[in-house]
């Protein structure tokens, strides 16, 4: 297994290089006039050109041949892409073009509020949906199963925005059970996070319950379940020891692969509840053509995704003896 892990890790630089190349190419393909927006509303063309030079946007995109005669062969790498590549791999994300804040600081400050929201939401949602999925699968075809599926479909039909707007209005404003909006660092954050977490769980429950119900239904009809009952095992043992373990592969796939995206936060919930996370940072960065922020976010997500994939494979081997990593 170790050899497999090492081999997979060796692929990582290639994947990350590809991601950086694509991000850079896309950004340069659709890039708006960032220098003009930095220069302010009354800027002259000369000022815009000065800013382009200051940020190195006047350099060649990939290969800097013009500077080779004067500065030597290494100057060929003094291009926008190679500078971007070097800065990324050394984790020097620089400063946001729009706000001039250090990108690492923006990410560090946003990550905790985002994760404070998404991690409990994720685990609560997982726990609830797997439990409900198992429960209704066990009672498949009964009224409780039909009702649950119907409610799930209805829940999936409700736009997230409507759930948030209603939840905030009713539970926070009308009933006064929760703060309407806000965030404080530390343990005080909990009081602001309860309602968005509950709403987040509620919004995701419909589709995930249906997903896990389907998985459980596949397993509950399997021969080994019948065999287990035939051997006289108690229902809890059959379900929690045998069925759940066999259902782990799809659960792990959907769970571990979702973990990197927890880092991105939740756009709508963060906006409506004033949680200063990363959910909106990326959107703002794209809107403002703030490449250092976009690059840092993409780079980190790419690395997390690669690691998440690797972790998924390792988990397969751990929970399923039929899977071997070689």
């Amino acid at each position, binding site marked *: 297994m170790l050899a497999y892990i090492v081999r997979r890790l060796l692929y990582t630089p290639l994947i990350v290089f590809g991601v950086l190349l694509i991000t850079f190419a896309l950004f340069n393909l659709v890039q708006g006039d960032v220098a003009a927006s930095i220069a302010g509303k009354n800027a002259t063309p000369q000022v815009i050109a000065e800013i382009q030079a200051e940020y190195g946007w006047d350099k060649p995109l990939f290969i800097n041949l013009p500077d080779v005669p004067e500065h030597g062969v290494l100057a060929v790498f003094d291009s926008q892409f190679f500078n971007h590549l070097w800065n990324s791999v050394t984790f020097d994300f620089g400063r946001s073009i*729009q706000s001039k804040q250090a990108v690492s600081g923006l990410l560090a400050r946003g990550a905790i509020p985002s994760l404070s929201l998404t991690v409990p939401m994720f685990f609560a949602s997982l726990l609830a949906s797997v439990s409900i999925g198992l429960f209704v699968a066990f009672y498949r075809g009964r009224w409780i199963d039909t009702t649950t599926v119907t409610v799930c479909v209805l829940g999936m039909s409700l736009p997230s925005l409507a759930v948030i707007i209603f939840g905030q209005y009713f539970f926070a404003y009308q009933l006064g059970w929760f703060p309407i909006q806000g965030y404080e660092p530390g343990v005080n954050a909990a009081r602001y996070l309860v309602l968005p977490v509950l709403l987040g769980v509620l919004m995701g429950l419909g589709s995930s319950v249906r997903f896990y119900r389907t998985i459980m239904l596949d397993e509950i009809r399997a021969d080994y379940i019948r065999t287990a009952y035939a051997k006289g095992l108690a229902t*809890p043992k059959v379900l929690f020891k045998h069925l759940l373990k066999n259902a782990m592969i799809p659960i792990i796939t959907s769970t571990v692969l979702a973990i990197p995206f927890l880092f991105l936060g939740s756009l709508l919930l963060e906006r409506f509840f004033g949680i200063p996370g990363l959910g909106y940072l990326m959107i703002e960065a794209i809107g403002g053509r703030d490449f250092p922020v976009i690059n840092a976010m993409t780079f980190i997500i790419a690395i997390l995704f690669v690691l998440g994939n690797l972790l998924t494979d390792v988990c397969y081997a751990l929970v399923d003896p039929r899977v071997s990593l070689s």
Partner: protein
Amino acid sequence: MTHPPRIGRHGRSFPGPRGFAGPLGSAPRLTTLCAALVVGFTLLPGCGGGGERQADVEAGLKVRYQALGAKVRGMDPMDVGDVLGAGITSNIYEPLYQYHYLKRPYEIVPCLAAAMPEVSDDGLTVTIKVRDDVVFQDDECFPGGKGRPVVAEDFIYSWKRLADIKNVSKNWWVLDGRIAGLNAFREYTQGVERKQDVDYDRAVSGLEAVDDHTLRITLTKPWPQIRYYLAYLPTSVVPREAVERYGDEFLNHPVGTGPYVLDEWQRGSRIVLTRNPTFRDERYPSEGEPGDEEAGLLEDAGKQLPFIDKQVFTIIEEDQPAWLKLMNGDVDVGGIPKDNYGGSITPQRELTDELKAKGLELYIYDRPVTFWYGFNMEAPELRDNLPLRRALNLALNRVEYLDLFLNGRGIPAPKIVPPPPLFEAYDEPIDSPYTSFDLDRAKQYVEEAKQAAGGELPELVLSLGGTDTTQRQVGEYLTRLYKTELGLDFRVDFMDWPTLQEKTKTKQVQMFGMGWEADIPDPENFFALFYGPNKSPGNNNMNYQDDAFDALYERLKVMEPGPERTALARQMEQIIVDDLPCVFIAHTTSFRLQYKWCENYKPNVYGYGLMKYQDLDAEMRREMLGR
């Protein structure tokens, strides 16, 4: 000792399929847990919820709570480029001049200056006396943590920072080409390899500290608007010690001279400003305009500023939570979201009884803003077809447009400069026969336009920045208007804002939606948008060129306010409305709600750092809110 009933103790298992016991032997325990969680969650908000508020009340502090509609990116005056950021930062940093809080038309008065500037007869030398009682706020960048007095040299340093290309300031345009030697200093900084190697002791010929409290500025050409720009936040004074100590993080460590200091800044969430204990002796104005006394705006005349001890800003980017927090009394001041307008404002533009009963008051005021659909005047199909431009202007029902998309929060714009009293010494009866709605005339002009084009008219494409629902609705409306009603080959191209900016700067648009908010109460600010040498990528995005207009602009730009200048401005406006390089749409109006315990508020659309004048009756708030 009694025990609470144990929830689920008598719960029974669900009968399972095939007759065996269900799996939920633990269901009652789960139910108990859920119930406990719900109770816990319900109680949690009550724990410490109003703790800070209560502590402030007990300490006898006057605290005002406000919502901010966007995150504040940084607090370096050199880089503040948005209204909200400036609204906060200007309470910490101050420039030499400021707008009189009460007088209208807007009037400039000294702030850190001791008197109004003395301008030489040729208009090229400006001498300014700096107050001798101003100190920087206490900060650890100073020896012993005590702020030192502000001297003339500090302004020279601050303006060199604006010029330094290594700082890539958004606001260099304010001083660009104005002060002798400052552009040369900028060129010098371009040649310096590293930011920290820029020599700020290098002399700039046009900036001289005659003594600690006298500043002499030599201009490259007369600049009558200088007094406005010396009241503009980016020209505020910053201490060199703080910039050098905090480096790139200076934007997060503001050290100014203003009435408030930054006490707490939870990025993206909350900002708290508290009273600056070393703020100079500055008093509330003793005179205003007619009506101010009756409105109670002079009751605090002559009193030391500021009145409020603590300003708490919560960043709320969505309309619904901002509105709910205002209705709840969690914030004292707010706007009216589009979706709440109908339920809040009567057709007579008054507050509904329900909101009045809550203790809210409504302020309506015009902003120096104009929106338009610009024509790229280098596109021959538009430049050479005046009847077409007239038709496009005549066909737009501006009143209907305002009602549909702005809740009527604005006034139709028949021309570029918003009406008085937003602009000093400028009153403008302009003959504008093509900018009021007349569909029949518009259709006649379409026929003329076809003749002018020699037959069929080419396709017209309007580029709009924004892909949200409102922009889409605007697009539908204009398509109906121009395509269905006028029979033009018209379509709308939606794109995000940076793309639209890029396309206008590179002249790749034919028609485009845009607007402008004036920085200063001088119509020159709007006329610059039509000045030939400012064509794209400058701010003349319409690429309008008219020699007569340009000649008038060059005269007006260096002329002091007065009847002659006003007459020039009228001529220039007339040229614009005759030539119609755009479809003028609207000037916007702001609606502000605040509880009646907020005092001394008067709308001021140009000034910053105005919180020092405002007060509140904390006792009234406690009585009305019960907390």
